């Protein structure tokens, strides 16, 4: 890989596009669960239950692929985000409203506030060196936050992952099977998890989660 990098000349600037519609364009951003009308359910639905659900919608999802053995690239990431790439497998880091999930030894999912996505991506293009890839996949996925006393019982129905605290501590992230689909599952608190799911599976998983949490009571929040 180092041979490859030393031979790669910076050819041209990658095209970067602001995916958010301009102010006043009248274009409405719709999250993958827009049709579920979670705001209405939050008001009219149950206010107590063992599982709470919130869609952390319209965030910026940037997939970064680079070389964890390249100190220049690691330093560049820290310059842009103020946050170091988690090199330890299956770990995630959070600082303020920016998070980075380890996806594979050369791939990370960076989640940033939606309106900052274009600026952060542009900044990466200015600062990163060498052989890397940065893709804005914001429109393709969404984040579901789940918490409450029965959240682990719910998750056990959905995936073969072991959620015992010794096996799945706070700060861990895994990609796995989730209800015949897939999800990136991270633990952000003792009884608090986040799922990164595909847009195309969002409705299916929303239906699945409602069904699987029925026995505990599902509270929608916004």
């Amino acid at each position: 890989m180092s041979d490859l990098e030393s031979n790669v000349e910076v050819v041209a600037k990658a095209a970067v596009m602001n995916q958010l519609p301009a102010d006043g364009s009248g274009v409405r951003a719709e999250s993958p669960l827009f049709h579920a009308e979670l705001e209405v359910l939050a008001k009219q639905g149950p206010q107590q239950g063992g599982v709470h659900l919130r869609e952390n919608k319209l965030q910026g999802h940037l997939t970064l692929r680079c070389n964890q053995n390249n100190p220049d690239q690691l330093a560049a990431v820290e310059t842009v985000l103020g946050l170091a790439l988690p090199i330890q497998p299956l770990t995630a880091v959070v600082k303020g409203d920016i998070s980075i999930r380890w996806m594979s030894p050369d791939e990370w999912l960076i989640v940033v506030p939606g309106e900052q996505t274009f600026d952060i991506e542009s900044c990466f293009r200015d600062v990163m060196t060498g052989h890397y890839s940065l893709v804005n996949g914001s429109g393709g996925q969404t984040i579901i936050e789940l918490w409450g006393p029965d959240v682990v019982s719910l998750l056990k129905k959905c995936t073969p992952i072991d959620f015992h605290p010794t096996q799945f501590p706070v700060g861990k992230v895994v990609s796995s099977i989730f209800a015949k689909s897939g999800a990136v599952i991270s633990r952000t608190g003792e009884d608090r998890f986040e799922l990164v799911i595909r847009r195309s599976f969002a409705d299916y998983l929303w239906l699945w989660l409602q069904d699987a949490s029925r026995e505990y009571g599902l509270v929608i929040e916004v």
Partner: protein
Amino acid sequence: MFYIYCPHCGEHREEEEFHAKGQAHIVRPIDPAACDDKAWGEYLFFRKNPRGLHHELWIHAAGCRKFFNMTRDTVTYEIKEIYKIGEQPSVVAGNKLAGNK
């Protein structure tokens, strides 16, 4: 149902997360145009089908999406060894007791 160790994630995961991708250590001919039909055909289509130890390519499809190698016993399904791409197996036929890397 059994657990498979992913050397990239560094932990065992449920079999359902993985896919087998066939025989490992198949070397692509450096100059395909120089191959005769027999050599190219064997590279593309001909695979071992041993009874006993087999070196296979697997992918952690639902996890980190990385490939790795596995030495497996096709009779007992026992997984003898997991090793990364580019590494050589330490458990090989005729050397079945060698367990350490």
